[in-house]
């Protein structure tokens, strides 16, 4: 069970909803991924095109927990405003705090992320900050009362996978709230690795939506996350430099 604030989830995959080739593919990908948490962004409507379809209308909103993000915010104030707009929909009280500090790398601004998280916690939100893989920053966010910590594996949408497994494992070891590896996942291997490191969940988007076959990849990610989690719980064997035979050495018939 993944517990985030007052909520419990049996799936450890959080799925983004951006950049799918079409709604049908997206719907099927969401379905086979068995995710229970979908992320969204908050944007101005195009009021001149009221009939423009929206993915929210294509799914059973009751079945999913919505995790809107504050993407687009460059300051804590902008993130807080976006979060409040999202909550006023009456559909959610979780928020992914995302305050981008640098356009090229899309790396989060730690100071503004901390400020926004603090303010949103005071406003009663369930706060999940997207953060860098800085161990102390993760600690500080937890001390504030954040309900989960979401360190990036590598830059958003880069598909580079987990660049700093050591830092991620330090964050996981230290945290008493769920750690969800967010951003940079490229393939099922990366998702499994995050889970084997002991992460409580993985949030990904482009790895599925941008795959050649998004529906297949959605299923692959689901399985990878389950396999990684099981592997973590099972406890892997220590690494050794030299071989140890798996077959018994006794009773070998020497011809």
């Amino acid at each position, binding site marked *: 069970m993944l517990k985030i604030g007052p909520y419990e989830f049996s799936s450890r995959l959080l799925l983004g909803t951006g950049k799918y080739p079409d709604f049908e593919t997206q719907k099927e990908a969401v379905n086979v991924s068995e995710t229970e948490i979908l992320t969204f962004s908050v944007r*101005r409507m195009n*009021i001149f095109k009221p009939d423009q379809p929206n993915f929210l209308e294509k799914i059973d909103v009751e079945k999913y927990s919505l995790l*809107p993000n504050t993407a687009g915010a460059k300051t804590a104030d902008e993130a807080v405003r976006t979060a409040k707009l999202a909550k006023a*929909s009456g559909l959610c009280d979780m928020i992914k705090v995302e305050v981008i500090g640098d356009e090229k790398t899309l790396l989060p601004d730690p100071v503004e992320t901390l400020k926004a998280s603090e303010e949103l916690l005071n406003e009663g939100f369930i706060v999940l900050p997207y953060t860098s893989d800085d161990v102390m920053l993760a600690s500080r966010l937890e001390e504030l009362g954040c309900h989960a910590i979401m360190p990036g594996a590598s830059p958003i949408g880069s598909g580079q996978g987990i660049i700093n497994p050591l830092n991620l494992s330090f964050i996981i070891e230290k945290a008493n709230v769920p750690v969800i590896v967010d951003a940079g996942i490229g393939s099922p291997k990366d998702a499994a690795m995050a889970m084997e490191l002991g992460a409580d969940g993985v949030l990904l988007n482009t790895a599925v939506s941008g795959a050649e076959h998004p529906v297949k990849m959605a299923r692959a990610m689901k399985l990878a996350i389950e396999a990684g989690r099981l592997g973590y719980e099972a406890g892997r064997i220590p690494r050794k430099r030299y071989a140890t035979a798996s077959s018994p050495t006794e009773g070998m018939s020497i011809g």
Partner: protein
Amino acid sequence: MQLLINGDYMEIPSEIDSVSSLLSYLKLDDKVVVVELNGKILEKENQSQSLSDGDKLELVHFVGGG
């Protein structure tokens, strides 16, 4: 009545005098829309709030994102 909606000035018939009637007028009443009126976010139950000339509105919704 002139309103500033999502950064564009729009001329709206004067009988459209509340946020909820504006949403129907724009054919957005069955959508998930969040309204910010003059910088203040409206909770759903306050969408009957009346409008006056020169009001500034932001209409936002959820779109795909990660």
